[in-house]
């Protein structure tokens, strides 16, 4: 079952970082929520089950 301890709407999302593959640079990088806030950018996070399947 899915973990039910999701974030609530209106809540500040705790800072997090994830390693990324950036297709534009064709290189590895990182995504950081703190960077997004510093740059005043909106973020859409799009979760999906697995690579090599339909999304």
């Amino acid at each position, binding site marked *: 079952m*899915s973990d039910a301890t999701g974030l609530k709407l209106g*809540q500040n999302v705790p800072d997090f970082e994830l390693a990324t593959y950036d297709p534009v640079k064709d290189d590895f990088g990182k995504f950081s929520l703190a960077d997004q806030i510093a740059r005043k950018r*909106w*973020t*859409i996070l799009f979760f*999906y089950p*697995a*690579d090599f399947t339909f999304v």
Partner: protein
Amino acid sequence: MGCDVVTVSTDTQFVHLAWKKSEKELANVKYPMAADPTGKVSRMFGVYDEASGLALRGTFVVNPEGVLLNSEVNFYNMGRNIDELMRKFKANVYMAKKTNEVCPSKWKDEGDKTLVNPGAKMVGKVHEALS
């Protein structure tokens, strides 16, 4: 649109690279593909499936202050509607500018009918306010 899309799965960035390069459907992908192999961030958003180690189809909109404004989670077998995601995103951007207005369900884009200063006068009169 002042917005960054990031995709997240529990695959590593190395697998993302391999998938991007082998799947022709992804030829035009420009967004970073994030790796959450420990499931830490997927758990934080409540989309981690402990049984499979995979993330459910969750979509989340976070504003420039880091506040979570929308959440939608679909089970494995249900795809997402990008038009509805863009509608929600545009409505968030609009309401961030016009803080005394709210966007009803049929709102699609700037210029569409909003409700202004919803308050005591609008109670029982939403139909009139929308028409």
